[in-house]
């Protein structure tokens, strides 16, 4: 069974990574029509350097994703604290209501947001994108941080309080450090949700302010060049680096109380 399992794993990895590797390779191929044989060239990276539209969209994406990660992590963590440590009326309903947005198709959420933002005067553009992305990412954050909370025993804070900590001090000196890997994971998750987001961004972007996935989509419609591969490669390497750094330093799950 052991070699069979290994083969299975390799097949899965091939399926996952071959398209990505082909995509990356084609960014270094001179042919604009993705023709073989392969001849190495950096011309598409040079072209990308001069393609301000694509670069601006890429930068927008990163800015939006960063702000989304920061805001939704802060808001979601606070919600998670309340849901995990406090009792109040309507708590279980609130907890339940957080889950459907994850399952609702983005197309429907996007349409709803567009209609609502148009009707309420919020309109479209960067601020609308931010609101949409943050709203979308919060349930994920609450879910991830909430799971982290479950690994921390409530009596740790009680022990701190018995030793003289106020509840606020107990939270910041005990719970928050233990929650740190979950919060970091949630932030990365939120970042990825925002960076990946196409449907909602497509609805809420304006011609003057788009994100990378939306820009790539409109470029493809006009007929595309390997510049797309180049920027995708840059983006991919960037996000993979972040995730690897996270996995290396945060050691998710390492600090949890095993009992």
């Amino acid at each position, binding site marked *: 069974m052991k070699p069979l399992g290994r083969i299975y794993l390799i097949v899965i990895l091939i399926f996952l990574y071959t398209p990505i590797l082909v995509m990356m390779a084609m960014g270094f191929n001179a042919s604009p029509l993705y023709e073989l044989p392969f001849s190495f060239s950096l011309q598409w990276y040079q072209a990308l350097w001069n393609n301000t539209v694509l670069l601006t969209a890429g930068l927008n994406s990163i800015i939006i994703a960063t702000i989304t990660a920061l805001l939704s992590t802060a808001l979601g963590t606070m919600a998670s604290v309340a849901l995990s440590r406090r009792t109040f009326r309507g708590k279980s309903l609130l907890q339940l209501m957080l889950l459907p947005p994850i399952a609702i198709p983005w197309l429907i959420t996007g349409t709803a947001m567009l209609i609502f933002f148009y009707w309420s005067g919020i309109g479209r553009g960067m601020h609308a994108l931010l609101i949409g992305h943050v709203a979308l990412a919060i349930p994920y954050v609450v879910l991830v941080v909430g799971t982290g909370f479950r690994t921390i*025993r409530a*009596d*740790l804070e*009680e*022990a*701190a*309080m*018995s*030793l*003289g*900590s*106020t*509840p606020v*001090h107990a939270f910041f000196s*005990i719970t928050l*450090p*233990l929650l740190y890997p979950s919060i970091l994971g949630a932030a990365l998750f939120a970042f990825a949700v925002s960076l990946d987001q196409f449907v909602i961004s497509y609805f809420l972007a304006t011609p003057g302010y788009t994100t990378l996935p939306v820009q790539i989509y409109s470029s493809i419609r006009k007929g595309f060049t390997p510049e797309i591969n180049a920027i995708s490669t840059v983006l991919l390497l960037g996000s993979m680096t972040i995730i690897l750094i996270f996995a290396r330093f945060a050691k998710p799950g390492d*600090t*949890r*109380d*095993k*009992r």
Partner: protein
Amino acid sequence: MTNVKVNSVAKTYGTTPVLSDITTEFPEGSFTSLLGPSGSGKTTLLRIVAGFIKPDQGVVTIGNNDVTDIPVWGRNIGMMFQSYALFPHMTIAQNVAFGLERRGIKGAAARKEVDRALEMVRLPGFGDRTPKQLSGGQQQRVALARAIVIKPSVLLLDEPLSALDRRLRQEMQVELLRIQRESGLTTIFVTHDQEEALTLSDKVAILDKGRIVQIGEPETVYERPLTRFAAEFLGDSNFLTGTIDNGAVRLNDGTVVKTTGTLPGDRSKVTLAVRPEKMSIVSGPTDGNSLTARITTVIYAGPVLSYLLETKDGLPLKLFAQNRDGKVLSDGDTITLSWSPEHTVPVAE
């Protein structure tokens, strides 16, 4: 080193009273066990003394201070939890120093205190390890060091030994008692383990349905239980019911049983408690009380033989005997058992 008092303390959750009108005192330097089944309110009482729960009414005083309105972090208590509750992201030294730091003791002075506390629990040199590297027993010692290093006014123990295995638990009991005696801390100990309560305590309080049923020295509570519940919860007991007749008790089958305990007036109903180890199997007539019964089961438990008996009225009885000659009697044998009027305790139902 302070005495702790609770005065008419009551707590109700929703419509369920958890504690009703508790008044008791924990004298300076004493070790008191709160013993009772789950739901008896023993943990609630401990948490009210700690300050985690605010009572609906009543007053808690530590020393001469009314602390009823002071939250837990202002009470200067030392507490041990069932789950040890060591901070997993800190070293052992940091764990022990946590309370010192909250009191403004840092640097070399804190290090000295920490070292001394770790020495007291026999874990010198463990300061740089993390809780995960320690065994359950060691973690519990660290929790104890962390609780006493701050020189608390009172030491509160919430079933701290129940997560340990039997052998380790006995070892920790000895350790706990030694440290309690050395430090002279007023200690309140919540447990559901009766043996633990008897071995460790100066005083045992038995709780039932939010009330203290009986409080006293272990020997008094065990030998002279006041109620059927107290007799049943602390140890094993046989119960005989009858009517008072001329200073003695006439059982339903006509047997007359004498007691040295105080009985209410003639004709009233009474319940008598007799510990199974106070009864013995005799061959002839005796001066004390005696009954005839049939053996239903003999349980061989090494040093002790337990006999499950039944009188001809169908009243079940238990008798514990020292295993001197092995199992000589067997199921179905009819025996005469005897016990002293001194060991016949009238109890309230």
